[in-house]
């Protein structure tokens, strides 16, 4: 860790009078209104769900790789799940559904928006806290019951929801078709409650970014992570209520006998799909934009070079935010929707890859002629770029509606979504967690185990998900409990086995991360203020920052990417440092002028 060695030497700050925080434990860590604590609470919650989702994936992979073979430890599960150890279709369907639901709504979304939105926004814009700290606390404490309710599905009669994370009606609306009743109701209720949490979070973030920026922190000096989180918050604000609305209608169909999605009484099954995907596509950009933003910060830092094309990066984020609303139909090409719409959605979907292209090439531009340090966050951020590109490019295949006829609802889609969600979002999350861990917990994560975890993940991840493209091209459908039912899939079974074995290794590798995460919390090397020599405002504070963040309101003189600037003899120049070299150097005004 060469970088940590020189950690604080360069710029040192007077942190103001030593801050004594005498709030009782419960106000400090349980019902805290401090955005940093809330961020960490979200982190623990969503990592737990990530682990649960991963475990369910292992069950699915076992069944897919070795259908009919008893699941290790399967006998411990109730008869409704396994038949002397062998996974039952009931269990498989609820595993797929809950895997997708946990990962999207309770792992990746809270990890990006809940954790880093909370932790980074006030620190990076120089604010003491969120605009509405109490609403912020409420946002977390509504997310928890939502999660518990979703989990409860496993323990009620009939089992958890089992209609896929997309819960297509009428399968999800009529319990006589699945045998699942309470579980599906819980699914709706849980997402409605989680929606409240997300909405409380999002208008809080938006208000904070608009109103609480420190002097000098004008819009075009905002770090890209903040820009991304800001646009994401807007997407959450506008997309989530649509999901809530749809979930409410579905809930009524299940409980009070309404007929929104039930064709027998004139309801419309496709209506659900339109509502869901009108939310759903903006949702997938909610799951990638913050990842892109944080990766940009980390890559610029690792390359010790200003981000390439800051303005077009910002414009690309905004463009994705807008275009994301006009492409939902690409999930419904084969649904029976009017074919003419199909053509329109194909064009809009293809066009939406342009802003992502801009971002990709600007990341390349950033490392070009850099002076690259390969610290662990940087490794993950670079993996994010190269893996996201694979996922993005596979998206183009499906965007071409005629070819989507063939690969829709096959493992090609499964490959795509894992390349963007794991290869994209999750790698960026690994990067961000290792990057801001020192700030959050005041200790470094072990770089050695970090590297081990990174390389093993990169390898096993690709072994797990890359062959899924081939499965898809071979016609392997999604959400099937036993592929060997089909003659044309039997010959591909070795691939399924290879994938499963890689998946088990992948899971094991993640335990290294878990261990490193928990271990470093207690045993990790003490972190300096600024281990990565970063320009952001949060790095001017002690690690971890005190309650209320800044002793005096910082003044911002420049953007966050002034690495290797000729104005500084060091290779970085923090946002709040007056121009070095005295003459005519502006001086910070007193706070709150």
């Amino acid at each position, binding site marked *: 860790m060469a970088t940590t060695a020189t950690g604080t030497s360069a710029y040192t700050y007077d942190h103001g009078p030593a801050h004594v925080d005498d709030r009782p434990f419960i106000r400090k860590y349980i019902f805290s209104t401090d955005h940093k604590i809330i961020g960490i609470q979200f982190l623990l919650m969503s990592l737990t769900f990530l682990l649960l989702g991963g475990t369910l994936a292992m069950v699915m992979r076992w069944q897919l790789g070795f259908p009919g073979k008893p699941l290790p430890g399967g006998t411990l599960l109730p008869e409704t799940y396994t038949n002397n150890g062998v996974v039952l*279709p*009931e269990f498989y369907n609820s595993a*797929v559904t809950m895997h997708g639901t946990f990962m999207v709504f309770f792992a990746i979304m809270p990890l990006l928006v809940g954790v880093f939105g909370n932790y980074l926004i006030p620190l990076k814009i120089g604010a003491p806290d969120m605009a509405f700290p109490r609403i912020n606390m409420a946002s977390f404490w509504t997310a928890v019951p939502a999660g518990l309710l979703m989990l409860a599905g496993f323990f009620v009669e009939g089992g958890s929801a089992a*209609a*896929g994370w997309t819960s297509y009606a*009428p399968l999800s609306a*009529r319990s006589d*078709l699945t*045998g699942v009743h309470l579980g599906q109701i819980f699914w709706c209720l849980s997402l409605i409650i989680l929606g409240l949490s997300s909405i409380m979070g999002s208008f809080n973030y938006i208000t904070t970014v608009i109103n609480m920026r420190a002097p000098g922190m004008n819009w075009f000096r905002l770090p890209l992570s903040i820009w991304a989180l800001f646009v994401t918050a807007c997407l959450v604000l506008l997309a989530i209520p649509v999901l809530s609305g749809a979930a409410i209608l579905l809930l009524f169909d299940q409980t009070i006998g309404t007929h929104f999605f039930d*064709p027998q009484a004139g309801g419309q*099954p*496709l209506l659900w799909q339109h509502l869901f995907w009108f939310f759903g596509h903006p949702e997938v950009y909610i799951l990638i934009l913050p990842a892109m933003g944080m990766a940009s910060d980390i890559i610029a830092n690792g*390359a*010790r*070079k*200003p981000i*390439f094309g*800051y303005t*077009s990066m910002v414009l690309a984020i905004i463009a994705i935010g807008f275009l994301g609303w006009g492409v939902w139909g690409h999930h419904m090409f*084969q649904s*029976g929707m009017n*074919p003419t719409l*199909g*053509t329109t959605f*194909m*064009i809009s979907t*293809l*066009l939406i890859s*342009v802003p992502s292209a*801009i971002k990709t090439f600007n990341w*390349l531009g950033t*490392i070009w002629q*850099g002076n*690259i*340090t*390969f610290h662990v966050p940087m490794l993950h951020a*670079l993996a994010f770029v*190269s893996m996201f*590109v*694979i996922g993005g490019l596979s998206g*183009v*295949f499906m965007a*071409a*509606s*005629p*070819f989507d*006829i*063939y690969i829709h609802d096959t493992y090609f889609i499964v490959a795509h979504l894992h390349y963007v969600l794991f290869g994209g979002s999750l790698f960026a999350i690994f990067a961000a967690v290792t990057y801001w861990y020192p700030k959050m917990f005041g200790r470094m994560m072990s770089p050695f185990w970090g590297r081990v975890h990174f390389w093993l993940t990169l390898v096993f991840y690709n072994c797990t998900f890359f*062959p899924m493209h*081939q499965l898809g*091209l071979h*016609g392997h*459908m999604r959400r*099937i*409990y036993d592929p060997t*039912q089909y003659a044309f899939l039997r010959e591909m079974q*070795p691939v399924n086995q290879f994938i499963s074995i890689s998946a088990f290794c992948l899971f094991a590798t993640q335990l290294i991360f878990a261990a490193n995460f928990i271990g470093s919390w207690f045993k990790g090397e003490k972190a300096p203020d600024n281990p990565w020599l970063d320009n952001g405002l949060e790095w001017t504070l002690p690690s971890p920052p005190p309650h209320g963040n800044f002793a005096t309101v910082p003044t911002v003189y420049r953007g966050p990417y002034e690495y*290797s*600037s000729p104005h500084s003899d060091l*290779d970085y120049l923090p946002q709040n440092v007056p121009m070095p070299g005295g003459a005519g150097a502006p001086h910070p005004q007193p706070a709150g002028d």
Partner: protein
Amino acid sequence: MDKFLSWMLPPGASTFVGDIDWIYYLILAVTGVAFVLVEVALVVFLIRYRKRPGRKATYIHGSNRAEVIWTSVTAVVVVIIGLLSAPAWNKIKGREGVPPNAMPIGIEAKQFEWNVTYPGPDGKLGTKDDFTIRGQLHVPVDRPTVAMLTSQDAIHSFFVPSFRIKQDAVPGMHIRVWFQPTKVGEYELGCAELCGLGHYRMRAIVTVHTQADYDRWVAEQGHSVAQR
């Protein structure tokens, strides 16, 4: 393993193979180039510009020219892909796409089977010589067949990989889906939309006959139906 990692599409047996597969190979080529460019550039830069003591990164904030170039190039490429794909889409799924001489059949999906209604000798649906058979789809070769697709309960999806055709069967909707087999033989029909516990085994066999064999088969069936 090479067979498993091949990027070729499996052999097909309908006219759509010709309409669809080349689009796949086109996109494969385009995205392949993009992929190689990006990944190679990435790796080269990482090696070439790795940290060296006493060196500073060049202080550049970007280049408008570069931005304009890669933005417009990508935009043009994707629009071309779209324009080239549109005709195939309209031909296969377009409302006017269905050939007039297509043989009409009815397919009703329900948990977890496919019920196929055949027009019988008179070649018309809705007449009394129609007959329905469970789990078997029989069609003549080199002649378009149009299925009136619907579902009784959940949403199912009619998927014949070898024909490159897929269409959801939605309760309350009657969706026309057509295809024209080009090779006599037996193929698998699967359900591609999660429809409940039996989704994974909602399978049927598609038998493609020569016109003569098909007519003979229809005659037999029609007969045995008459018996009942």
